[in-house]
């Protein structure tokens, strides 16, 4: 993919946008980043990161199965992710906020088994569909080539629907995520909101897997949101920041992938991880600074008291 990279950025961008596939990749990436940043923010707030991961992983057999049956993988992704979200919502623990890999042996073992079985099914479909083995990496780790116009259209419709639904759900969702018991007492239909959010999560996971691949969704769905959550506690600002980081990571990742021989999955996950590490470091430094300042302001008082006592 390496066409010459020069120091003239405008020229580079123009050179990149000559290619229709690149234009489509950027369009798809933009839609997905906005949705993933927004939905991901609520997901991190609700501690449902691993539900998102599971949904993305079951997207892989969906896409592989759809390809095997001669359908577009897009329908496979969305179909199975929405179905999976409804199943999780119907499970007894699905309504609870922490239906993730919390470390409790039984539950996480079940999730692990489901994920491994889903991946095994995906592998089965891929090997049943001969000549598709080269597409395996694209499904698992993402690609910038081969986003079709139809796929962009489906992503756009799903993305707009997703954001509209999120806007309707946002207030009760935020309320029930922050304090479920109080929200329930105030008459918020907590279970319905939780189920609706899981469907949104399924849509977001299906969209994200089409850019980063099924295995690397954490890079767009979790890392930008987690980064934003480290930087601010205010929901509106955090949401904006999360979408912004997801957009920057996607655009930068796709651009670097275009000019370098290494795939998008690597760049997007590395950039997202770097942002997350920076935010974590920044947070640690500012926390320590804050601590020292409060200690510094406390010490003279302590000295004064001690001096007074002497």
């Amino acid at each position: 993919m390496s066409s010459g990279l020069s120091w003239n950025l405008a020229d580079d961008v123009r050179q990149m946008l000559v290619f229709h596939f690149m234009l489509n990749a950027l369009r798809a990436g933009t839609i997905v980043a906005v949705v993933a940043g927004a939905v991901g923010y609520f997901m991190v707030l609700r501690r449902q990161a691993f539900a998102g991961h599971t949904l993305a992983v079951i997207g892989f057999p969906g896409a592989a199965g759809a390809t095997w049956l001669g359908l577009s993988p897009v329908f496979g992704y969305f179909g199975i992710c929405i179905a999976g979200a409804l199943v999780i919502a119907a499970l007894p623990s699905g309504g609870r906020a922490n239906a993730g890999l919390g470390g409790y042996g039984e539950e996480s073992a079940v999730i692990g088994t489901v994920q491994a079985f889903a991946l095994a099914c995906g592998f089965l479909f891929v090997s049943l569909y001969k000549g598709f083995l080269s597409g395996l990496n694209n499904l698992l780790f993402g690609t910038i080539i081969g986003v079709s116009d139809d796929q962009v259209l489906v992503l756009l419709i799903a993305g707009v629907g997703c954001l509209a639904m999120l806007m309707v759900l946002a207030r009760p969702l935020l309320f029930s995520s922050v304090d479920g018991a109080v929200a329930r007492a105030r008459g918020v239909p907590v279970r319905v909101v939780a189920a609706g959010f899981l469907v949104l999560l399924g849509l977001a996971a299906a969209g994200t897997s089409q850019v980063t691949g099924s295995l690397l969704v954490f890079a767009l769905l979790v890392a930008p949101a987690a980064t934003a959550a480290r930087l601010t506690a205010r929901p509106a600002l955090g949401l904006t920041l999360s979408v912004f980081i997801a957009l920057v990571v996607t655009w930068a990742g796709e651009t670097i992938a275009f000019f370098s021989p290494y795939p998008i999955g690597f760049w997007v996950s590395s950039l997202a991880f770097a942002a997350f590490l920076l935010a974590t470091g920044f947070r640690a430094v500012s926390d320590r600074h804050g601590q020292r300042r409060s200690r510094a302001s406390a010490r003279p008082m302590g000295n004064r008291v001690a001096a007074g006592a002497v």
Partner: protein
Amino acid sequence: MTSSIGALNNLADRRLLAGGPLTGISNMLGHPFIQHALLAGTAIALLSGLVGYFVVLRGQVFAGDALSHVAYAGALAALAAGVDLRFGLFAATVVVGLALGLLGGRGAADDVVIGTTFAWVLGLGVFFLTLYTTHSSTDNGAANVNVLFGSIFGISAGDAATAAWIAAGLIVVVLLIGRPLLFASLDPSVASARGVPVRLLGPLFLAVVGATAAEASQAVGALLLFGLLAAPAAAAQRLTDQPWTGLALSAGLAVTAMWGGLTLAYAAPKLPASFAIMALATAEFGLAALASTALRRRVRRRHATPLPVTAPTTAG
């Protein structure tokens, strides 16, 4: 792990000779590639069942997930560097297992940190894959698939024997530390009060889990090894509360899934072996979950019947 060409030859061999689903077992056992697969597979399944039981008991399933990502990155890093794939596999998983054990002592890291970190490790694996693809001329799409989903029918005699010996050594280690480990897993504070070296056992056990992950990824691949660790163990835990029975049951279920999966994949050449193994392990867990739910309901009903008799007496 053998070259991809060997794997392809074996695949063709399998297609030709597996005339139909009713080819006799003795016929099946006559093929050297089946013998190698059975040798390595049995040892690996036995090890995974034993180690997996402790993993589930200790609530460390996340470590299995993390190590599967590390196994992928490690194997491809070794391929890119031009050394034996197994070297990268074992080095990466054992080192990360030890590190997880040493760091994990101070409070559990939250799932966002774990997930983000290991997604990046997987991304690193893709980077090494591209490095390997661009810097060598061999057909390595197959190598990538083998690392991800295993190639147990492509394993050579020498590799099978090595895998079996390593598995045997690790099983001995697990059985040696089994008793204190069980004690430390069930009640860490009492165990450490009784002089069990709990702080030493944790990292040691996770290093063993790492080596097990490296072994299992040779059989079912880096992506599915997590299932081979979790499914039989979770099934065994559903069926019994007795730790030693559970441990044996978990190992037995893993070996059954392995044998059944290999036979199924041999009989129906369209099924990849790792899919067949994973499907059987999942089915075992599903059946165990159904059986235990039915059993619990019956027990509850039996306990429920005397209640109306006792209720009036306590009320009166």
